[in-house]
């Protein structure tokens, strides 16, 4: 018997969420205990894929922010006085506990943020644990990292993180701060507070001394109160360039240290001698990873004219093979847009792109009835002066341009106020070196894209911010030298 030709579709493969037990309401984690907000205000946090409420979280106000910083200030001298090896032990313990609870963290990350479980399970959570492991190792070796410079902690640090990699960004901020002997007040983003609160549970269970890490939730106002507070000697922020500017102003007024990791509009450059299949995969990873909610997303694609048709054909075909839908499904490639307001921003840019005369292509996938969704999108016939080629969209939207020569593409790639990351695709080593030194970007990937490692410093040029996170360079941001 022969089988007739049929179309073969993958069935649903949802990751179980039955084991997740979220509290109805989360308080603020201040001085090692769960503290109700003084004003008694709470706000709902939802699942962007279903619009269902997951939990209520506290809105930290002036008094709460004050209490958190005072707790951090009180805890700092003792924390600093501990030997590096002792601090390292605590950080190792947090790392191991994160690994032990990784499944729960991955599921909650996907529920609260909308990202596919494949990414939270294989990328976000393992990398977060890796950051703690890596920095635990530095805690007793700071003198060797900076010989003859007598590294000292800065003191109390205020940290504000974004909603695109909630737990990972918390790890990027907290791990080096602790290793260097600082104490922390951290605020997760308004739309994605849950994994930071689960991290607070881990920190509590790890018996980290009270007040060393304080995690408070709230909106932009809470963030503003944090940056204006007198106690923190350093502000560390990852997020939009617009908010970054305000934070820098606040820092200047009070003479605080500051590191900013802001927006980007990265150029992904494909030469005609590139391994095309790998490049197409890199474009997909570059722009559709985490629904394009990635500051270093390869949102501008530059293709050498002679391979343009080929690249476009393969790119569209690969886009069509992406699965969009339930973030908890193990086969999902594109999850939900993080929030309603972000979806509105993206939709606005889709309109602008078409009005500017660019040609829009979207895959023909079905969007779920509830939740916030955007089909993977690309624009062709894009001019350098188009807004979709200039401004950060922070969504699954790719703007494609062509180029003829190396000089031309270097000019185009650098012609942006941002400078966070870039990608180069060519089989020729010498061309890679020529470009990596000519591109004004903090990170340049060659024949790959969106690869992260705690040992590798990450950060930007120009309006993408300053300061580095990860590697030895990242430690420097949490130390002062006598």
């Amino acid at each position, binding site marked *: 018997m022969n089988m007739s030709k049929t179309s073969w579709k993958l069935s649903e*493969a949802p990751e179980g969420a039955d084991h997740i037990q979220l509290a109805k309401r989360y308080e603020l984690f201040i001085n090692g205990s769960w503290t109700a907000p003084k004003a008694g205000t709470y706000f709902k946090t939802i699942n962007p894929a279903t619009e269902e409420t997951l939990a209520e979280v506290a809105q930290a106000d002036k008094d709460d922010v004050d209490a958190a910083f005072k707790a951090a200030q009180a805890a700092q001298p003792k924390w600093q006085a501990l030997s590096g090896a002792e601090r390292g032990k605590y950080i190792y313990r947090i790392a191991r506990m994160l690994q032990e609870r990784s499944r729960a963290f991955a599921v909650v990350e996907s529920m609260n943020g909308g990202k596919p479980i494949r990414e939270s399970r294989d990328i976000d959570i393992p990398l977060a644990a890796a950051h703690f492991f890596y920095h635990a190792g530095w805690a007793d070796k700071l003198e060797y990292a900076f010989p003859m410079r007598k590294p000292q902690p800065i003191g109390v640090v205020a940290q504000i993180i974004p909603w695109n990699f909630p737990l990972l960004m918390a790890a990027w901020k907290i791990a080096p701060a602790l290793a260097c002997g600082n104490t922390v007040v951290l605020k997760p983003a308004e739309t994605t507070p849950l994994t930071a609160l689960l991290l607070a549970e881990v920190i509590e269970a790890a018996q980290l001394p009270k007040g060393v890490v304080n995690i408070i939730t709230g909106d932009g106002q809470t963030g503003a109160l944090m940056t204006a507070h007198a106690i923190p000697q350093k502000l560390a922020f990852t997020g939009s360039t617009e908010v970054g500017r305000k934070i820098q102003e606040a820092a200047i007024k009070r003479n605080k240290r500051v590191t900013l990791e802001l927006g980007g509009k990265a150029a992904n450059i494909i030469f005609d001698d590139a391994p095309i299949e790998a490049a197409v995969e890199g474009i997909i990873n570059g722009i559709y990873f985490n629904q394009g909610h990635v500051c270093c997303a390869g949102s501008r694609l530059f293709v050498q004219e002679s391979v343009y048709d080929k690249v476009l054909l393969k790119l569209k075909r690969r886009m069509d093979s992406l699965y969009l839908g339930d973030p908890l499904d193990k086969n999902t490639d594109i999850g939900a847009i993080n929030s309603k307001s972000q979806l509105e921003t993206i939709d606005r840019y889709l309109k602008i792109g078409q009005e500017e005369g660019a040609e829009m292509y979207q895959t023909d996938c079905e969007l779920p009835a509830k939740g916030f969704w955007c089909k993977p999108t690309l624009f062709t016939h894009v001019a350098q002066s188009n807004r979709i080629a200039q401004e950060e969209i922070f969504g699954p939207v790719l703007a494609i341009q062509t180029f003829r020569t190396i000089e031309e593409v270097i000019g185009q790639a650098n012609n942006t106020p941002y400078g966070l990351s870039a990608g180069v695709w060519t089989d020729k080593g010498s061309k890679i070196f020529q470009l990596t030194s000519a591109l004004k970007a903090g990170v340049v990937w060659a024949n790959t894209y969106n690869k992260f490692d705690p040992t590798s410093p990450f950060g930007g040029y120009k309006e993408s911010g300053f300061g580095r996170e990860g590697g030895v360079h990242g430690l420097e941001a949490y130390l002062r030298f006598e």
Partner: protein
Amino acid sequence: MDFAFQPVDQMGVMDRVARIKARSVKKEAKKQGLRMALNMIDLTTLEGADTPKKVERLCYKAMHPHDKLEGLPSVAAICVYPMLVGTAKTALEGSDVKVASVATAFPSGQSTLEMKLQETDFAIGEGADEVDMVISRGRFLAGDYNYVYDEIAAVLERCRSQSVRLKVILETGELGSLEEVRKASDIALKANPDFIKTSTGKIGSAATLPVTLVMLQAIADHYDQTGVQVGMKPAGGISDAKTALQYLVMVKEVLGDRWLSNEWFRFGASRLANDVLMQIIKQETGVYQNADHFTKD
């Protein structure tokens, strides 16, 4: 003839394979996939010790993989040496199962073109529906690409004249790198055979997902450029159903549904069928059966 070669990035291939392996094939998709896999198998015996009786047993299995379960598809073909094609042809009479014969000085390919063509003619004369030829790897590695191409074209001509389908075995385990695999694929594809195939199964390294990915990408490019559809046959080393399903996901994502039938995709395997059967029965009944419930032919 001039061959324009494509660079292949090893890391990129590994990344893509990892994504494909992460796909979860469950429920209805698994049920359908397993039956599809069974129907795509070229049940193979290529031993010096092969006898007509052994081949007859295998032919029965090919037509009736597991009679205890009704409605199962047969496998796609039986793959044997030319001397046993006649036996297989008789045993399979009246069924849809095809007879494939290896030829052209299989497995090494170290012989003259005349001898190779003679062997091909013999296999076809005995009744083979399909011929699995090997390329001259020595000539390929020496850079004599036109020789390799001409040889494929000559064998293909003999096959086409008798409406026999041709599979071209690259023996990727002897080619040294994925870039060479791509190069050999492009040379073979230029001749428009019916299938390209990874391996003979006679050396240590046989079909792998990375090698198959590179060959599928070459097939896709060939189709885009010429409109000619060429099939794919990974062979050797695929012995469990889970891996077989990963191959099917790869075919679907790289080439599309059009390739998902035994007209365009085959598994060359001797042990795979039983594991697929075991999984099918697990899907139907919820329990695994002992391996001795499946015949070893």
